[in-house]
Structures are given as structure tokens and as C-alpha cells.
């Protein structure tokens, strides 16, 4: 087999390991898949009644794409925890001492986590449809929106790998897990940024999560009263592509470097 062939075979072996985890601990993985559903139902119920849309559409039309984006952000925690656990248990060192391709270790992680995100999105889409959420611009446009969401997930994956390789212990992971919440809330995931105080709205608009949420709403044909006359307000699609690419450009090389020079 060629070097590339081995890299792919090794990556699949590593990804399969995560699939085996799912089989060994079905309760845990089902919980992580359904956690965003819980968020959707909770916030839909909590805030839906107080939301008043001029066109009389349901809050779920706004909230469902927001929760999609939020679920992509929460995926970061899973990546980070898995990477840190492997480093601290010495599993990463064992991989590094094997005659396998070193790219495969991270590539395998990518494959597994992207599969995980696809399932998460699938569960959320089914729930959303059951709650009355619809896409209105046709399937190709909806698929483009899912593409943007998975692009964000792919970018955050590298952030997760980098943090996972950098932090020394589980406590630091907990800290990042806590920080994920304000980042998730300070966005257009739950409410239009135009309803926030000006300064806060601006910060929220520049949150890459908002760009992806707003852009996918446009592609689904769901309402998003966030649009303002600012550049970021009118260029959500561009930002939803550029911001993840920027994150990848920063964190992919950093993670690769960190992996090569890993030492406890």
C-alpha cells in the first residue's frame, strides 16, 4: 500500500475506535446527541411565548437554525475532552511510538467527530421538523446551509484539538466548557442581535457563530431580523465562510505543530 493509502487506513482505524466507543457506551453518546434537542425544547418553551414576530411565524423558525449553530459549538467540548484524555492516559504517546502515519491520529479524530456532528444535526432536524420548523428555499439551498454548519464544526474541531493538546488536565477542560456557554449565548442563536444594546449587538454580530446562524437562516428561508446596515449585518454568508476558514488557517498548523512537539 502507498503512504497515502496507509494514512487513510490508519485514520479509519482511529475513527472506528470512536464508533466502538459509541457501541460500548450507547447511553453516553445518545445523551450527547439529544442534549441540543433538550436546549431546543427548553428555550423554545421558555422564550417562544414572549417572542412576537410581525409576520406571525413561530419562534422555532428563528431558534432551530440557531440551535444548529450552537450544537456545532458544543461539539468542541467533545473533541477537546477526547484529545486531552488520550494525552493524559498516554494513548497519544503510544500512537506516536507506532510505525503509523502521525496525520492519521488527527484525521481519524476529524472523521469521528464530523460523523458525530452529522448525527447530531440529523436528530435536531427531525425534532425541528416535528416542531413545525421548515426550510423554504428548496433542498439544495438547505444542503448549502448544512454545509456551512459543518464547516463551522470542522473549524472548531481544530480549535478543540489544539486546546486538547495544550491544556494539562481535566480541570482546564472544565474551564473551557464553562466558557463555551457565554460564547454560545452572546450570538444571534436565540434572539436577533438588533434587540440587544448597540455595543453588545455588535459583539454578538461579529461572533462567528452568529454569522453561521444568520447565513443558514437565509439559506433555509427562515426569518432573521438581525440584519443591520453594518458590513457584518449584510455579509453574513461571506463571514460564515471566511471566519471558519480563518480559524482553520490558524489552528490547523498550530495543532500539527503541537502534536509533533508534544511532550509531557
Amino acid at each position, binding site marked *: 500500500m502507498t503512504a497515502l493509502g496507509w494514512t487513510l487506513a490508519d485514520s479509519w482505524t482511529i475513527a472506528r475506535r470512536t464508533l466502538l466507543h459509541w457501541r460500548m457506551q450507547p447511553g453516553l453518546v445518545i445523551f450527547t446527541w439529544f442534549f441540543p434537542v433538550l436546549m431546543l425544547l427548553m428555550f423554545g418553551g421558555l422564550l417562544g411565548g414572549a417572542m412576537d414576530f410581525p409576520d406571525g411565524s413561530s419562534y422555532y423558525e428563528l431558534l432551530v437554525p440557531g440551535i444548529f449553530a450552537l450544537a456545532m459549538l458544543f461539539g468542541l467540548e467533545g473533541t477537546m475532552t477526547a484529545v486531552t484524555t488520550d494525552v493524559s492516559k*498516554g494513548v497519544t504517546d503510544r500512537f506516536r511510538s507506532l510505525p503509523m502515519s502521525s496525520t492519521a491520529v488527527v484525521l481519524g479524530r476529524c472523521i469521528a467527530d464530523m460523523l458525530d456532528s452529522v448525527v447530531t444535526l440529523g436528530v435536531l432536524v427531525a425534532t425541528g421538523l416535528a416542531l413545525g420548523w421548515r426550510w423554504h428555499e428548496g433542498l439544495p439551498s438547505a444542503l448549502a446551509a448544512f454545509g456551512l454548519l459543518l464547516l463551522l464544526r470542522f473549524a472548531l474541531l481544530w480549535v478543540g484539538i489544539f486546546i486538547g493538546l495544550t491544556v494539562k488536565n481535566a480541570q482546564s477542560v472544565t474551564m473551557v466548557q464553562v466558557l463555551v456557554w457565554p460564547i454560545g449565548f452572546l450570538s444571534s442563536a436565540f434572539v436577533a442581535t438588533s434587540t440587544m444594546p448597540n455595543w453588545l449587538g455588535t459583539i454578538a454580530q461579529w461572533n462567528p457563530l452568529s454569522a453561521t446562524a444568520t447565513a443558514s437562516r437565509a439559506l433555509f428561508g427562515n426569518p432573521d431580523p438581525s440584519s443591520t446596515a453594518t458590513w457584518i449585518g449584510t455579509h453574513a454568508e461571506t463571514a460564515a465562510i471566511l471566519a471558519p476558514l480563518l480559524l482553520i488557517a490558524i489552528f490547523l498548523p498550530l495543532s500539527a505543530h503541537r502534536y509533533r512537539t508534544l511532550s509531557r
Partner: protein
Amino acid sequence: MTERMIEAVGVRKNYRGGTEGAGLNGFDLEVAAGTVTGLLGPNGAGKTTAVRILSTLLDLDSGTATVAGYDVRRQGAEVRRRIGLVGQYAAIDEVLTGRQNLIMFGRLNHLRHTKAVRRADELLERFSLGDAAGQAVSKYSGGMRRRLDLAASLIVAPSVLFVDEPTTGLDPAGRIEVWSAVRQLVDGGTTVLLTTQYLEEADQLANRISMLRAGKVVAEGTPDELKTQLGSDRLELVLADPADVPRVVQLAEPLSDGEIRVADVRVSVPVKDRTRALVVMANSLHEAKIEPEDITLRRPTLDEVFLHLTGAEVAA
């Protein structure tokens, strides 16, 4: 002529910041094929650093190191093809079963699926893990985990096996399990570099011992050679009456080969000519009408060698 499986010359490694781990400071090592060499030293002496450099996990600052004839810096891939590493932590997936772990590592060693399965089952039998093969590793005892860890590093029968503190944190039963597993490897002809801070472990398992202190090998040889190196055997006397101590020291003086140590009613005399010293001393005591509680000859323990060479005070 014995083939050298590991050779390190003047290896230096300083960690940035300096506190994170122990560096190496002109580390030399030679390990002949088919032997077990114990790298013995206290915490922070640089044992793990040495293993990590030799197994290509960590880059060195200067010096050279080869494993199975390949340079660890320039031919890392060749080195990795020939080594097995058992790190300080049992580096196995705790969620998976023992069998799933070994199959996965077999696949990552580029065995075909059927071959990986067969090898996994062979190794599970060999390390007496057959009954637990289908259980998640999180249910294993400490000793079972280390054995699985050893098995995982033996999938492709490495030429050199690095075993870093294999029994740290294990109970005595687990320790004995792991020792017998390591002995089996040696019978199979694998060259082993074992690090440990337990003297007993090195004494039990290793043909040769290198003692490490502050990133440098300070003594090297067989366990017996090291014991001899520290000096002579000792004649140990335990007296019934503390008042007799000065007289006994005086009697022992002509036989002594070094410093006579006294602690309470114990007198410890370094001697060269073992039997003669014992007979002469016994006679002198008899003539002086001193009846000792106990009189014995003993070799220095590896503990004493270790403490002596690594700079700690030897308890009398």
C-alpha cells in the same frame, strides 16, 4: 561479539523553562542484544526523558542515540518499526475491551484484519487475559491493565522494548504479575530497557543496571558488580551491653577496610576477607568475654549502593 541494540553517547536534553521534567546531562548507555538493562534512579533523574528520546517521542539537544542500529533523530520511522513502548501509564483505551484494544493496535501496526485478530487472541492467552478479553478495560485491575499494555507493545515482536516504571502504583500482587510477564519476554529474546525507582525490581529483572543521577549515568554493571563496587561486605554486630561498644570497635579496628559505623548497640565493620574476619572477630570477642546478641556477615544491599551513588545519606 554481542550486538548493541541501544547506544547513546553524550545525550543532552534541557527542557525549556527547566522545571517540567528532568533533563539529560551527558547521558551514555549501551545495551547488548537479548539483555534486560535496568535504568535505575530516583524521581527526576531523567529516566523517562531517556526512554522518550530513545523511542523518538522527544527530540534531543545534542549527542547521538541509535536503537537497533538506526539514528533516533534521522531514522525515526525505522526505529518505530522495531520498538515497543510501555509508558508510565497503561496507554490503552479504557472504554474498549482488551481484545478490541489489541486488534486496534494490530491494525495500526499494519497487520491485516484477520492477522490482527489472531495475534490479539494469542497475546491475550499468553498474558492470561483470555477470560477478560471481552470486558471493558475500565473493569480491569491495575496488574491486568499493565499486562494488556505489555501485550499491546508486543504485537509485532519488537527488537527492543522500553518499559517505563512498569509497576509504579501497583499493589504487590500486581507487581508480581507484571514481573513474571517481563521475565517471559526476556525468555523470548527481546532486548528490554526497563526504568524503575525500585531497587528490588532492578535486582529481580535486570542483567545489568545503569544508575542515573541528575541526567547522567553514575554507575553501571551487573547487580553484583555494583554491590562490590560500593565496597566490601560488612560484618554486623549487635551487642547486649552498650558499654561494650568502644571495646568492640577497638577490636574490630585491625579487620576494618573502611569506616566503622556505630548506631546504638549496632557496630558495622566493612571487611575484605570475609571468613577470616568473622573467625578473628569471634575469637577476639570470646577472649574479651563479650557475648554479642548477633554477629553476621552480609553483602551491601542494592539500596545502599543506590543511596550512596545518588547522593542520599546511607542510614546506618
